[in-house]
């Protein structure tokens, strides 16, 4: 069965203090690894999809990377508006559904 584990559960950063979030996964055949951002009480907002090991994608202060076992979401010089829960999910080749991790709650203080 597909499994996704995210760490840390919560992360507190000062504005400008770069860090990385981890997503470890087990899947029979990876079709895609997805990153979402979720604000309290809202639906997840799509950030990135990564399809193969070695792939990287960037958007503003965020950069996602993928290996055969894990993905990292690097946050460079974060701002308070980056505070949110970041969710990782995998899609295997058998089904279109996403299997989610429990997320990392990020708080960036000014």
């Amino acid at each position: 069965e597909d499994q996704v584990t995210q760490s840390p559960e919560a992360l507190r950063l000062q504005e400008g203090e770069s860090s990385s979030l981890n997503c470890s996964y087990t899947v029979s055949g990876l079709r895609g690894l997805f990153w979402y951002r979720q604000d309290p009480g809202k639906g997840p907002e799509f950030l990135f999809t990564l399809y193969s090991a070695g792939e990287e994608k960037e958007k503003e202060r965020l950069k996602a990377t993928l290996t055969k076992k894990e993905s990292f979401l690097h946050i460079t010089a974060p701002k308070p508006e980056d505070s949110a829960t970041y969710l990782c999910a995998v899609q295997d080749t058998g089904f279109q559904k996403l299997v989610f991790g429990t997320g990392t709650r990020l708080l960036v203080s000014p």
Partner: protein
Amino acid sequence: EAGVTQSPTHLIKTRGQQATLRCSPISGHTSVYWYQQALGLGLQFLLWYDEGEERNRGNFPPRFSGRQFPNYSSELNVNALELEDSALYLCASSLAGSGNTIYFGEGSWLTVV
């Protein structure tokens, strides 16, 4: 272009009643997914519909059911509501085929009292 829309935004029901939640996918998307997010918990997969057919179901009891209409909109029905059904219900849609981006709506909050 409109995103995934869900209604109602909030719903309060009494234990034992039935709840119906509705979802309109992004135009052109034929796949619709339903997820449950209980307070403090992760997103749990409920149902996946494509071209009007149920393609996959998560580990939920049969009182959770749904359907997809010819216009690809969908509804989720929850019968015999229990207190633990209180959660944010999220609908998502995508183009058919794996690997396509799955976009979420803002969700429907269901409170069972």
